[in-house]
């Protein structure tokens, strides 16, 4: 091929510009650590960055809300344990004072104790977490139980998303556990009956109240099983969520991040190639016949 002056200059210039371009691109990858900046750099990877990015955000948030809900259920669990202990005390008292060897005065003192137990249980059932009443169903802005054990909450069970698209109950029904809705006993009514019987020195009444206390204890135990189940579900969900997040993060990194060793090596190569190109260009400019004529 016949090589002309303009041709060699044009080629040298084009190659120099290309070498510079490669050097700049390699430099950008090394400094930002990212392989994909504009969607055109790698359309499929850009799409993955969008979907995995949003997925990771979602998993992150779900993790946080699950933790908050977990805190509430743990508190509920603790409160119910205390209720259980108090009911055991009431049970013991009822069994003891059911024995007619006890005097009216002793039974009267027992009545006061039962009243005390009842109001402690009311307090426990009005537990709040972060300003929110956890035993009122969806009515969480005011205390669900009044002083005499009347229930003003609702029958709803709260739910939260513990995994994308998967809902989990995050509360227990205090109306079922404490008020006997759905075929159980009203715990407060039972305690009230026991208290009255004690105050009236009614031995038979005291003894018959024991059954009710026993049933109440069963109801609370059943609620504790439910809270245990919820906490277990939260635990699993968090573990699975953590694995899912790691996996999404891996996919995201693989698609979007520059391999730092590759990028650094590319940069070195590009810089060397640029230097070589500049040197050769300068050399070739010097070699024409003009140098040798005259």
């Amino acid at each position, binding site marked *: 091929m016949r090589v002309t002056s303009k041709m060699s200059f044009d080629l040298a210039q084009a190659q120099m510009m290309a070498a510079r371009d490669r050097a700049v691109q390699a430099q950008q990858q090394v400094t930002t650590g990212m392989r994909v900046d504009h969607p055109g750099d790698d359309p499929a990877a*850009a799409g993955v960055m969008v979907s995995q990015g949003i997925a990771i955000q979602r998993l992150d948030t779900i993790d946080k809300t699950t933790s908050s809900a977990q805190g509430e259920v743990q508190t509920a669990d603790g409160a119910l344990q205390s209720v259980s202990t108090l009911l055991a005390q009431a049970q013991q008292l009822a069994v003891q004072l059911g024995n007619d060897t006890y005097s009216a005065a002793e039974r009267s003192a027992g009545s006061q104790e039962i009243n005390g137990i009842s109001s402690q249980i009311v307090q426990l059932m009005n537990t709040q977490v972060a300003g929110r009443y956890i035993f009122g169903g969806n009515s969480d802005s005011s205390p669900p139980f009044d002083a005499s054990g009347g229930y003003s909450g609702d029958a709803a069970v709260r739910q939260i998303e513990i995994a994308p698209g998967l809902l989990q109950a995050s509360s227990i029904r205090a109306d079922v556990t404490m008020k006997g809705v759905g075929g159980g006993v009203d715990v407060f009514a039972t305690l009230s009956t026991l208290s009255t019987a004690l105050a009236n020195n009614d031995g038979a009444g005291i003894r018959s109240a024991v059954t009710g206390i026993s049933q109440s204890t069963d109801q609370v135990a059943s609620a504790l099983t439910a809270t245990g189940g919820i906490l277990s579900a939260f635990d699993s969900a968090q573990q699975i969520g953590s694995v899912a997040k790691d996996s999404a993060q891996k996919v995201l990194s693989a698609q979007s991040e520059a391999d730092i060793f590759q990028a650094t090596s590319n940069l070195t190569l590009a810089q060397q190639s640029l230097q070589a190109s500049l040197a050769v260009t300068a050399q070739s400019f010097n070699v024409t016949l003009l140098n040798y*004529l005259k």
Partner: protein
Amino acid sequence: MGADLFSLLVQSGNSLGAQSAAMSVAGNNVANANTPGYSRQIANLAANPAVSALGAGGVGTGVSLVNITQARDQFVERQMPNALAAQSRSQTESDALSALTALNPDLSGGLPTEIGAFYSSLQTWSQNPGDPSLRQNVLGSAQALATSFNQTASAISSARTGLDAAIQGKVTEVNAAANALADLNKQIQISKSAGGESNDLLDARQTAVDNLATLTGATPYTDGAGNISMALPGGTALVVGGSAGQFSAVPDPSNDGLLKLQLNRADGSPPTDWNGSSLGGTMGGLFGARDGALKTAADSVDSLAFDMGTALNTVQQNGFDMDGNAGVAIFQLGATSSGAAAQISVNPAVAANGRLLAAATTTPAASGDNTNALAMIGTQSQALPSGSNPVATIQTIVTAFGTSSAQAQALASHDGAMASNLQTLRDSTSGVSIDEEMVNLTKAQKAYEAIAKVIATASQMMDTLMSIAGT
């Protein structure tokens, strides 16, 4: 003329002229070594016809310059306009698409980030729907989402109007180039009828042809009279011999007021609308980017804004707010998806009062009822009218735009290499090699010296002859 001394002198004088013409040509080539579009000229010398002399056969009568031709490769030159047009089209389109950064997947404040953040705020809210600060959080994210839609739409729109400004500039250039070509056709005809081709005019015309092809993708064809005319893609003539058509750009109300082309034809027929995307070259690239990938992105973002806003409004309106009233729309939208992304905003009444967010599905609404909030979160996985859920839709928008951009880049690279190769081939044939011209110059110079020597010798011989005569 015979083989006598006088003839020898005259012939040598003419031969000197031929050699000095050859030197001039070499000198001109060297001077124009870097002129773009210059085809090197070759001085064609030929021996003059012999005359019979002294009955002993023919004697040559020196050398004369027959003509000055150009070194051109017709095959390469016929391919150049198309190659240049293709390169310009794909490079222009590639540059235009690369310049839009509003759809970068990692962009802070970009749609992917804000869509994710909005749904996250709904998620957090659903766990404690009565909490006023969490409600405020949702409103903040809704505002950020609306702003992100507004900004994305604005960036795409700016890109398109920016291309419009470029189109306006190119229209002026195209018209000037068309006129220049028509002019050159006329001048070459004049020069031909005066006798002989003008090499410089031919070079200038080839450059004008390449230029017009680069701008519009028009293809050249030579007519019987030796004019080079140019036809736009589709066959309509832009330049016919000595007359040129002219483009103008006017706003097109059916395309958001962006420019459309009109062609006043070379043959004088009335002006017609011209589809810019049907052109090649720079113009084709500008229209292709503006009305292709950028328009698709703009329309898709509008649809997403409208569909997402409508879906959330519908769920909100199905529920009840903290005061037990039916929910009011969170987002304000127009009647259709056209321009929705630029218009979408948060309902000021809701923005001012977080209690209006409808978390509950029954009234009177319990403060902890989150069932409607869960339904709002659910819209993240439900298909919008456009076919996919919001997350999949924004992913598709980003990928589709990226694909168009990557394709344009790949084409630009390929077309650039093609044009570059052809340019190298053309330069190889038509370019000036300084070394070669130096040799030619030296050749002509030595020949000139030799002929001068012949003249000197003939002159001496004449002197001898004259001195025989004596006084």
